[in-house]
């Protein structure tokens, strides 16, 4: 299995633990992640200029197309943006024309022909690798760990882009992936809630209230929270620490990226899984995992 890996902007600059663990896990599972000199996916400027955003996505997709590779995105927002570009360019002729006009004017490019498939890293693990295979490769079963998953907003939504691989209102694929490691995925109220990251730049107070709500629900009830999106990671991990300092309280909810958890189960050295970047201490998790 070979994929072009799309890191996006946030992960290489602020959430390196996600990238590091994803690469380590892929290697252990025999998946080759190819770097393709990608740029920004276009997501941040989409509300301002859709054609420019789609053009940025198309420029990236063209690079994957030239290598003949499908794309896995670590970031949920990048995954959604790229998949949306694929769909829009396929279905909306006039937008496709505008995008190609902009591409040819600015870069001398045209994006057409066979389009690569774009999926999220977790969906790749769930669909292309499969929970059965993951289960069979677990060397250090994580029984005893209680995990709350946070699928986030863009992983399975909009449902038109996710091809029906998971229920958009009640996603279960991430829970199944967690259970493949031997850990217990617990059900909790508000699993579908947004982390608040989407509104952080506009209303920090609201964003923090949203983050705090879920942390308060989970505090003391689970061993860790598992997620798959760098924005969610910033909110729950980084802001947990910041809010804890402001409020002079400890939430004590370690936040792991799924590949970090999977890496532990696959027996990978924790040094290679980027735990030093995590803001909230993960010592409890490592101890329970027997590392």
């Amino acid at each position: 299995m070979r994929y072009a890996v799309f890191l996006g902007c946030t992960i290489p600059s602020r959430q390196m633990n996600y990238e590091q663990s994803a690469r380590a896990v892929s290697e252990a599972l025999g998946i080759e992640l190819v770097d393709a000199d990608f740029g920004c996916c276009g997501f941040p400027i989409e509300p301002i200029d859709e054609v420019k955003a789609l053009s940025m996505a198309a420029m990236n997709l063209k690079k994957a197309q030239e290598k003949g590779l499908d794309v896995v995105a670590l970031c949920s927002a990048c995954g959604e943006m790229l998949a949306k570009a694929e769909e829009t360019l396929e279905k909306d002729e006039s937008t496709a024309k505008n995008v190609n006009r902009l591409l040819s004017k600015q870069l001398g490019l045209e994006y057409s022909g066979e389009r690569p498939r774009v999926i999220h890293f977790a969906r790749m693990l769930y669909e292309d690798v499969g929970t059965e295979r993951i289960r069979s490769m677990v060397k250090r079963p994580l029984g005893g760990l209680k995990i709350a998953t946070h699928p986030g907003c863009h992983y399975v939504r909009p449902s038109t882009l996710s091809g029906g691989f998971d229920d958009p209102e009640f996603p279960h694929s991430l829970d199944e992936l967690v259970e493949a490691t031997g850990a217990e995925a617990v059900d909790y109220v508000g699993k579908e809630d947004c982390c608040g990251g989407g509104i952080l730049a506009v209303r920090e107070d609201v964003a923090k209230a949203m983050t705090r709500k879920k942390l308060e629900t989970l505090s003391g009830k689970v061993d860790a929270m598992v997620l798959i999106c760098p924005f969610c990671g910033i909110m729950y991990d980084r802001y947990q620490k910041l809010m804890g300092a402001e409020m002079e309280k400890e939430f004590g909810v370690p936040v792991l990226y799924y590949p970090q958890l999977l890496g532990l189960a696959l027996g990978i050295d924790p040094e290679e899984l980027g735990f030093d970047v995590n803001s909230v201490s993960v010592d409890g998790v490592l101890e329970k995992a027997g590392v």
Partner: protein
Amino acid sequence: MALGVFICRCGGNISGTVNCEEVRDAVKDMERVTTAQVTDFLCSKPGLQVIRNAIQRRKLDRVLVACCSPHMHERMFQNVVEEEGMNRYQLVHVNVREQCSWIHEKGATEKAVNLVKGGIRRALALDPLEEKEVELCRDVLVIGGGVAGITAALQLSEGGFKVNLVERNPSIGGRMAQLSKTFPTLDCSPCILSPRMAEVGNDKNITLYTGAEVVDLTGGPGNYKALVKQKARGVDIDKCLKCARCSTVCPTEVPNEFEEGLYPRKAIYLPFPQAVPSAYVIDFENCQRCGNCVEACPAKAVNLDDEDKMIELDIGSVIVATGFDLIDEEKLRSYRPEHPGVVNALQVERLIENELTEGKVLTTKDGDRIKSIAYVLCAGSRDPHRGVSYCSAVCCPYTIKQAVLLKKYLPYLKIYIYYTDMRMIGRGFEDFYREAREKGVFFIHGRPGDQERGRARGALVRDGAPGWRR
């Protein structure tokens, strides 16, 4: 052979997207096409005159009209060509409006050309037909014994038709028999339905097949053959006294379908008190064949060796009245359907009938009194992602009906209704909606994102917005 082709612009309905002149030019030189013309409103008197003149002057024996759907005007065009001495079955009606100009923006002209060319091939292959009168079977098959099937059967019988009514369940009645009251007048549902069910049972023109399904249908209108499979009932409906001795001794208990699984029934049971046919039935899938019921029956009506029957029916027409079913709960996992505090609306109907009208209160499994109830409307409706995209048009009014009834029996209940739009379309519905609000039912605009169980409540519904809960 001489064929005339007439293309209608339909005042822009067709010519707005189909270039009619281009269609004419594409076919006018085809073999046997004597004339090809474009007209405004082919169905108007001057339009028809164009066809009449062409038939007379050019001695046409075939005519193709490219215009609206044959459902609109085919018969009229046939009459016109017949009046001009042509065989009416050598008219070909090509639909370039409903199936072309109205539904395509691009490529409509190309499609119209193809449709007309196909029509020309067909016209050239047509033989003149003669009309004959033949005897047809007048008996009717009605599939489904709910209120729609019952009404259809009774009205047909009144009109002198013989009716075969086929119902899958052991009794007719369908969904309406399960309902407590009707909206918006709060009439008693069984009081409306039961007399009509009894009428079906007594009607000499209606042959009733319960526990039966249509497995095959062959033939055509006026001359169908239907194959009906009737499951073994195990009880002779003419002998059964409904004394309940059989079900008293039956050792097997299973969830009762009529009660939506809320209460148990035995493997030999009466579907419900007003059932028609008014007799017990054996559920052979769950029967242990212990023979207790055979011994207990004073009328010797029970036969454990009863077998399925295949019945062949000759009929002339079919009415399908198979009714509705609830959406698969698996599609609505975010509402936790497996939770004991979460019920569907049909279950509420049965709770009202079995508990509230008996003077009881609603309690949780642990015996705590339920003090508040939340309704989630549009669960699976208007939701193309996991349910259906359309609106049932009945959920809003029946929810209000249930809320008003619940408030009547249990005034202390707090009732919250989460709605998308209150669609109260029908006479008296809006007043009914106001009545519910006046009685203190809370209406909350929005779909809940998630829900959890609260200790003193049946189900606590939580809105998607943070920091906001009831």
